[in-house]
């Protein structure tokens, strides 16, 4: 079964964010879900956002372009170029938002690792500059809080239990 604790976040360097999440499916299916427009349309999108258009040219040098609709009818366009396409194993592409507030394209690498029918997707998001990453994260994790995530989460949850009402 997929890890019930959901996505984990870490910051291994000052230009990167790493997300990791387990899915209860073979990596072939998970890779498909990440690369087939008909499947991407059914899940991709941050909170409150859904894809309304999805173009994928799945080959090295091929372009991709997603259009999302968000709260109050807002539109967001993101696009890039595939750099590594290793089916069921690895996917690397550049990404740029049409109206992003930080410089340069972002490089996104997904590694699909399967064990006993569960696929863990580790996504490394590398920003062109440190400022770019910090804009996305704001400052907290840039100061090394990422490494102490688990302990912090433990402290916060133990505090929750003893919290005076």
């Amino acid at each position, binding site marked *: 079964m997929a890890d019930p604790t959901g996505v984990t976040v870490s910051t291994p360097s000052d230009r990167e964010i790493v997300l990791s999440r387990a899915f*209860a499916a073979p990596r072939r299916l998970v890779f498909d879900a990440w690369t087939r427009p008909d499947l991407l349309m059914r899940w991709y999108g941050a909170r409150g956002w859904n894809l309304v258009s999805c173009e994928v040219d799945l080959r090295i040098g091929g372009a991709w372009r997603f259009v999302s609709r968000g709260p109050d009818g807002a539109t967001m366009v993101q696009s890039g170029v595939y750099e590594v396409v290793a089916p069921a194993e690895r996917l690397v592409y550049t990404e740029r938002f049409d109206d992003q507030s930080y410089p340069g394209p972002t490089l996104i690498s997904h590694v699909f690792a399967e064990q006993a029918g569960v696929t863990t997707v580790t996504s490394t998001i590398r920003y062109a500059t440190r400022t770019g990453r910090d804009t996305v994260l704001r400052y*907290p994790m840039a100061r090394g809080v990422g490494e102490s995530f688990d302990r912090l989460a433990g402290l916060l949850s133990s*505090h929750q239990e003893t919290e005076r009402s």
Partner: protein
Amino acid sequence: MTLDLLDATFAALADPTRRAILARLASGDATVTELAEPFAMSQPAISKHLKVLERAGLISRGRDAQRRPCRIEPGQLRAARDWLDNYRGYWEESYQRLDGLLESLRELDDRRDGSNDDG
């Protein structure tokens, strides 16, 4: 809440001694003397940590000039937790939709495999 205060909160939480002090205060108010005891630290060293925690909005100090007991401020811890939950939730919501999609894809796969076995 300002982002500057949130920055100060995460910086304050990044230190193990300060996290231990907070954990201790979660079970009740304490004076500097009481806090210094289990940490094998001088009172001035503890006071320094307390100042950082106070600036970060994580604790408050009592008015009693002699004892000035320290008290945890749950509101700011909650703000830090909300920030983390929000960041994780930003992605998790999408991933939960993917969980559902993968489940239906797996069922399709199983059915196809099943018919192959029969043939």
